């Protein structure tokens, strides 16, 4: 990886201005701390249901979404906290949703797996594996239908590429030349099943070949490379037709809370931790001349942000009983 890393480092110096570099660092740290805090709150029984942490994959959401324009849509699966942050959702609103509060982005009705804020063009957070891929195709179709230049970024896991939805959605996106970036987060496992045990091909990228769809692979632990690869991919999509980008990454925590993790060795996890996307990036930044002091300031800002978010969430009201019956149907314009 070291060369790639060096290239990245060079890019850092040449292409990105300092504020953006720092913003990316801030965002990745925010995601990490938010997830760690969420884990505590889950243990404390304040968060229920499933909780799928994004720890280890921060560079994918931060890198990819940092180059989307406001009109570009983002949709992902249930491992959605990091994506929500990258789309601009505040830690407060996220924490409130995790705690099931009325102030949450989905009024406490969606929970961890169903974060969304359509004003930020973030369309969720979807719990049925692969089911959001057709939704993404449909949103891209709507943009195409309206002759908008918006692109839909559809994120999904390696495991999701084995379900029928993936096939039907990718095929349709090619036949209709939909403006969509298929962004696979290959974190090596679908729950406890290693990619090779569930997928005919170890490189998810290769599946695009069956549709004659342009595709690529990128180091998902390197935020700058993800950013650059996404920028290039979005360019291609805008100039016509879908693209599949596979980001190689790793999930440091269990699939959800209470995962026995019988399927992998601690050695393997340790090995990947040497590539910690935040650690790597921090080194880049320092080498790129950003002071450790500056980064530490960001880290303490994040700490404050998180505590504020937790307080906000805990102080927020529960949804009222009437909320059980609301939001199911839209008012009919009569």
């Amino acid at each position: 990886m070291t060369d790639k890393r060096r290239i990245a480092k060079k890019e850092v110096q040449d292409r990105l201005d300092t504020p953006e570099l720092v913003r990316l660092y801030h965002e990745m740290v925010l995601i990490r701390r938010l997830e760690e805090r969420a884990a505590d709150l889950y243990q404390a029984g304040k968060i229920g249901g499933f909780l799928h942490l994004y720890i280890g994959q921060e560079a994918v959401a931060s890198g990819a979404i940092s180059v989307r324009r406001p009109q570009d849509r983002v949709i992902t699966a249930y491992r959605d906290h990091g994506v929500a942050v990258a789309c601009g959702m505040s830690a407060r609103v996220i924490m409130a949703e995790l705690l099931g509060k009325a102030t949450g982005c989905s009024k406490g009705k969606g929970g961890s797996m169903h974060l969304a804020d359509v004003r930020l063009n973030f369309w969720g957070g979807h719990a049925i594996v692969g089911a959001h891929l057709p939704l993404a195709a449909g949103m891209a179709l709507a943009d195409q239908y309206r002759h908008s230049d918006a692109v839909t970024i559809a994120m999904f896991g390696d495991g999701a590429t084995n379900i029928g939805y993936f096939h039907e959605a990718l095929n349709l996106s090619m036949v209709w030349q939909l403006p969509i970036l298929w962004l696979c987060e290959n974190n090596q496992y679908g729950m406890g099943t290693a990619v090779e045990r569930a997928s005919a091909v170890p490189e998810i990228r290769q599946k695009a070949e069956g549709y004659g769809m342009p595709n690529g692979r990128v180091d998902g632990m390197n935020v700058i490379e993800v950013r650059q690869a996404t920028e290039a991919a979005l360019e291609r999509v805008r100039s016509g037709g879908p693209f599949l980008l596979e980001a190689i990454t790793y999930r440091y925590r269990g699939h959800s809370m209470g995962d026995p993790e019988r399927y992998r060795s601690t050695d393997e996890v340790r090995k990947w931790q040497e590539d910690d996307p935040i650690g790597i990036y921090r080194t880049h930044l320092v080498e790129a001349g950003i002071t450790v002091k500056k980064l530490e300031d960001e880290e303490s800002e994040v700490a404050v942000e998180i505590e504020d978010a937790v307080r906000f969430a805990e102080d927020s009201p529960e949804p009222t009983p009437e909320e059980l019956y609301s939001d199911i149907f839209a008012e009919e314009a009569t």
Partner: protein
Amino acid sequence: MPVLTMREAISQALWEEMERDDRVFILGEEVGVWGGTYAVTKGFYDHFGPERVRDTPIAEAVIVGAANGAAMAGLRPVAELMTINFAFLAMDQIVNHSAKLRAMFGGQFDVPLVIRAVGGGGRQLGATHSQTPDVVFAHFPGLKVVAPGTPHDAKGLLKTAIRSQNPVMFIEHATLYQTRGEVPEGEVLEPIGVSKVQRPGDDVTIVTYSKMLQVSMAAAEQLAQEGIEAEIVDLRSLRPLDLGPALESIRRTNRAIVVEEGWLSYGVGAEVCARIYEQAFDYLDSPVLRVAQEEVPLPYNRTLEQMALPQIEDVIRAVKEVL
């Protein structure tokens, strides 16, 4: 009043709504070049073009899924499922997504989608192609499920469905396309969730919908010969389910039967019966009888298939039993 076939009525509704609102578009298998398997969208492809009349691959899950997504993004897709039997290939999109997306995200967006699905038996298409599983979809909160039995209602309900801000499953019956009926000139809009008395009578109440409305009407004519006047209440919509007119009728007739084409157990009739007893227990002189399909996978052989499907005689027999 002009007389139209069901096919013409449905086709008109689609055409008028597409002319009225360019967010409305059709997607499905063979809806375009072919003109619709049941010729409902014949001429649409040439008139509205390939962007608004979209032939899809054979992939029901992404047909409904893409329609869901386009609806989330503000369009008004009309997804056609060649037959309702194929809705089972899109089941997750229909019941886990169309029905739930809005509530699950706290009402952040609407899902104004219509799913047209053709159901019904009687055409010797075999067990997988002859089902009337309407009740299965009607069980899910978040969906509206409509199944008209006349051209007038078909046109009025489909237009309302397309204008609805919410997901509507619109169930047509494969053997009703030639059925003729009066349809008023001009704008025809029928409310979803309101049942309708299609024939007045004081002796017995027949609660039914879709194809079985026609069968019940025919039965009622024969019963009238014998001086038995059946009142026929057409549910038109299974979700929301409106039993007001049926209950009002039963309080007069004190006798009722429910007629549906689908299987008996856990069918539409079960819910209708349960509600009738809950709300008109003291008015009933005898138990409500259910007429429904024999509980078997429908065979290809015509005689066996007809044996399994509810016939006019079955309705007449049931009526006489409750009298």
